[in-house]
């Protein structure tokens, strides 16, 4: 059996992609490799569309089976390969994506899964979500990343004491220690910064010293996450820690935040710490990729692993820590239901909250996420601290329970059995009796001579295609970037030329005094409008006109593009922190017959 395996991020790109969406698929793939190696030959590919079918054909020639495992969410899994393809994906919400947007069928995961016929995920929670969407006969198996063997073996016989003394951690990455920050100076700098109106300040922030050798004593709480992943809900984690431990000087929270550019997030975390100060406890932010030795050292000297997520596909760091024998502070929801319990963790309560599919650009509410009960998080911190300090026997029992629970959950032996069972499943045949991947068309019908008011009717957005900003009530809608598109359908199809009348305000001022806007209809250039501060009477809500020739508008749709010659952002011009590349504001428009007097 040949296993072609792939993740978008690979050993060569991991440093560059660190913390980006989907980066963790690389870590999951790495954990699966030994498993595949037990059952066949593994070939890691980097360009599936080019490589996989070639591997598949060669295998077929030699009479060998070949399956392509793509460690990617369904909407990023290659379709159309001859080689049988299995997506291996993480999912953290109760509903999988079942709609399309951007005219992309693959955004509907049912469309992809129906085509591929089977899948692997990492929790019983996501198996259930897939079954609910595609039917309980859909072949999908939960195989958590098999991390148990490696991490449980790291531990020396009895494990560590819950309270560490004089331990030195010197990660090969920048770190910020709350003890080394002058919070009074920091607060002052913050106030000055607010007073000056600046919202984006580059680091370094005054009053912050960076030191990478840390002497740690007491009870250590550790959490590892990508700083750009808001699902991790790290502000609750930080806020509750500082609130619960504000009078305790030997409790430390270490946040290992990975991302190529963590500085905006570090800035926000620092602001939170500034608002929480004064506190006696200690917070350490470690920013960046840790090598194996540093990663293990951090693990070894942690008392607890912390998770306060709103949803988890599986949470590798938490599994690793628990496999090693570190009890957790974590909620029991989504992917964590399978291995977090009161025997091995201080369980945080959580309840349903309106949620979005994390990659849905529309941010439509379609699924439940989980909201952390802040009070129960405070209690979990307090109780866990008490246990570490005064009940070492209970701590050790929890640590042992964690190891045992994770062995059941993610040992190589368990994963091996599950993968074998998966390989025995036949893919479900693609069914066409469904509306999976249905594209959603917009009603862009327009009645000639009617005026569309973009300043007070939100639903007029349906005529706007690419290149527009948000609806600004009582004002209009800005173009963003070099091209903005509108589309209309006129019934019956116009046989004669039409006049396009539009009310615009350009983004011009003394720093950016001119603007030129080209207009095309269905690809034909029809007008060029100039705006200048020298003609102030032709600027604000200025009506402009273009003629649409009959032969350019004979198709089913009228697609109008505004080509902004030199869009500018208020930020670039030093006017505000608005970084949109603005062209013109659209207020109103109408399309009328060329010979009509009925323009607005």
């Amino acid at each position, binding site marked *: 059996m040949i296993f072609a395996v792939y993740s978008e991020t690979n050993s060569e790109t991991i440093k560059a992609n660190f913390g980006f969406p989907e980066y963790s698929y690389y870590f999951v793939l790495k954990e699966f490799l030994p498993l595949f190696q037990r059952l066949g030959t593994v070939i890691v590919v980097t360009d599936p569309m080019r490589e996989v079918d070639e591997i598949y054909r060669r295998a077929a020639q030699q009479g060998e089976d070949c399956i392509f495992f793509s460690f990617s969410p369904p909407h990023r899994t290659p379709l159309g390969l001859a080689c049988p393809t299995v997506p291996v994906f993480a999912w953290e919400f109760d509903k999988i994506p079942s709609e399309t947007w951007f005219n992309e069928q693959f955004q509907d995961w049912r469309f992809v899964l129906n085509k591929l016929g089977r899948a692997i995920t990492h929790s019983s929670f996501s198996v259930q979500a897939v079954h609910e969407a595609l039917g309980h006969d859909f072949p999908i198996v939960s195989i958590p990343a098999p991390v148990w063997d490696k991490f449980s073996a790291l531990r020396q016989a009895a494990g560590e004491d819950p309270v560490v003394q004089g331990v030195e951690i010197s990660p090969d990455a920048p770190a910020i220690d709350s003890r080394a920050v002058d919070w009074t100076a920091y607060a002052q700098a913050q*106030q000055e910064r607010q007073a000056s109106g600046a919202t984006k300040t580059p680091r370094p922030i005054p009053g912050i010293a960076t030191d990478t050798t840390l002497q740690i004593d007491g009870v250590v709480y550790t959490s590892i996450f990508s700083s750009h992943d808001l699902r991790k809900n790290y502000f609750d984690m930080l806020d509750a820690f500082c*609130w619960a431990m504000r009078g305790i000087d030997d409790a430390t929270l270490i946040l290992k935040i990975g991302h190529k550019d963590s500085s905006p997030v570090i800035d926000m975390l620092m602001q939170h710490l500034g608002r*929480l100060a004064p506190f006696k406890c200690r917070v350490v932010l470690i920013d960046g990729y840790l090598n194996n030795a540093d990663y293990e050292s951090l693990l070894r000297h942690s008392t607890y692993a912390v998770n306060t997520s709103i949803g988890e596909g599986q949470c590798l760091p938490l599994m690793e820590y628990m496999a090693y024998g570190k009890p957790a502070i974590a909620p029991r929801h989504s992917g964590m239901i399978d291995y977090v319990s009161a025997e091995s963790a201080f369980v945080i309560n959580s*309840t349903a909250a309106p949620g979005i599919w994390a990659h849905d650009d529309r941010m*439509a509410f379609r699924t439940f996420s989980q909201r952390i009960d802040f009070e129960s998080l405070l209690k979990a911190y307090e109780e866990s601290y008490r246990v570490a300090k005064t009940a070492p026997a209970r701590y050790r029992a929890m640590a042992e329970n964690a190891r045992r629970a994770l062995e059941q959950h993610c040992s190589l032996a368990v994963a091996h059995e599950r993968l074998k069972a998966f390989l025995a499943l036949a893919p479900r045949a693609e069914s066409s009796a469904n509306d999976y991947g249905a594209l959603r068309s917009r009603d862009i019908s327009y009645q000639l001579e009617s005026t569309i008011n973009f300043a007070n009717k939100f639903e007029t957005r*349906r005529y706007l295609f690419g290149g527009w900003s948000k609806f600004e009530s009582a004002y209009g809608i800005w173009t963003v970037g070099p091209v903005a598109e509108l589309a209309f359908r006129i019934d019956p199809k116009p046989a004669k030329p039409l006049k396009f009348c539009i009310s615009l305000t350009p983004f011009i001022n003394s720093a950016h005094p001119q603007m030129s806007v080209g207009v*095309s209809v269905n690809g034909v250039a029809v007008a060029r409008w100039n705006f200048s501060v020298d003609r102030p009477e032709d600027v604000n809500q200025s009506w402009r*006109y273009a003629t649409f020739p009959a032969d350019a508008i004979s198709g089913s749709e009228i697609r109008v593009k505004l080509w902004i010659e030199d869009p500018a952002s208020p930020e670039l011009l030093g006017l505000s922190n608005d970084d949109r590349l603005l062209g013109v504001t659209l207020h109103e428009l109408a399309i009328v017959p060329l010979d009509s007097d009925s323009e607005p």
Partner: protein
Amino acid sequence: MKFIVHSQFDENSIRASLGRPDYGYYFVRKAYQLALMELGSVETVQNPESEVDAIFESCVENGEACVFLSFAPPHKTPINLKCPTIPVIAWGLSNIPDEVWDDEPRNDWRFVLRKLGSAITLSKYAAHAVMAALGPDFPVRAIAAPVAEWPTAGAAGAVRPHSKSAGAELKCRNAVIDSAAIDLSADLLVSVSRPGAGDDERAPEFGHLETNSPRRPAQTEEDISPATVETAAADPAPGPETIVKIGGVVYTAVLDPEDLHKNWIDLVAGFCWAFRETADATLIVKIVQHDIAAYQSKVFELLCRLSPFKCRVIVVQGYLEDAEYEALIAATTFYVNASKCEGTCRPLMEFMAYGRPAIAPAHTAAADYINDNVAFVLRASPEISAWPHDPRELFRTTRYRLDWGSLLVALQESYQIAKHAPEKYAAMAARARTKMQECSSVSAIRQQLTQFLMSPEISPVAATPETPIESAPATALTDVAD
């Protein structure tokens, strides 16, 4: 007895000030006056610093007791008047400000309250916060702002769990948004194709085209382009009066979307979620915020993110006259509140006084009158927060985080009762009225006020001609050591 009263906003300024900090004190003052009128004469002042002491001194001359009730947070209450001053405080957080910032000692409320010697809060929760800061013997009393009885509330037909036909007609001057009248869709929130997908497309050649000038400039202005690209602040004239027909089970919330404690996103999301498939459930959100532009696009975006849904959301803007307000209450089946904290929540009290059961959490001020008998109680637990007027935004206090799942359950249960158990609904409605009569009728509040104002702790007010007011220990507890 003379009562001098003051709130920052008055009859003339309140309409344009809805949603501004402390606007709610105007309504509290108006309500208090109903009870005060029965205890003595009430005089409203515009500028306490210059007016109060003159009135006070003429009262002293006439041997009349006199007290100044300042309807304002302590840091805005004058502390150097000769006239005994009692601040009336609306507060919904777990502790009162006990730090100084901006070199203003009054920002430490303990300083102000010790100087003034007593205080009234609108809730027991706030009274506890004051006592926690100033000692259990500090003279503070929780006295809610009274809610006037609705003359029509007890009339036949007033109990109205739901109407089968589109019965109720509601006059709205400004129904800004009616979800039933617009085509909401999440697709409107993004462009049709992926941004950047067509970036390789080349612009056609425009060089040959004459540039054309407008024939009809719309406006000529000095300032030819907005320096900052902000929405033009609209100060809308009252819109045309429209009649909205509503039927089914009607939920109403009165709130300011700019006030984040009101938690309106949870509220609207909960409603649309619970009633995604229920066509005869309606949510009326009466907005207490005069600046439509500040929130309208947020409401559209939220509704688009929640769509599709079969239920109906109506957003009503603007100040309602008493009769219009009463019509809104009459058309309502349940009042719904999802706040993170409340200093008092007058709309909730007013709807309940009319006989409308509630969906609300039983915390902060609402703890005084919300329970299972009169409401579907939402769960919530503490989370950290900042004092709202602290510009440093430091985490120093707690408010409540809503258990949103409990809102879904409460909405669904309340709907079932309105539709299928009218007798249960009627009993709940009756208990809500009774509860409000007990805790906030004008006569109940008058009694509480009398007790407090005449109590020995508040000796300046109880001053008799034999006890000169000047020597009264108005500042007996003054201790500004910190």
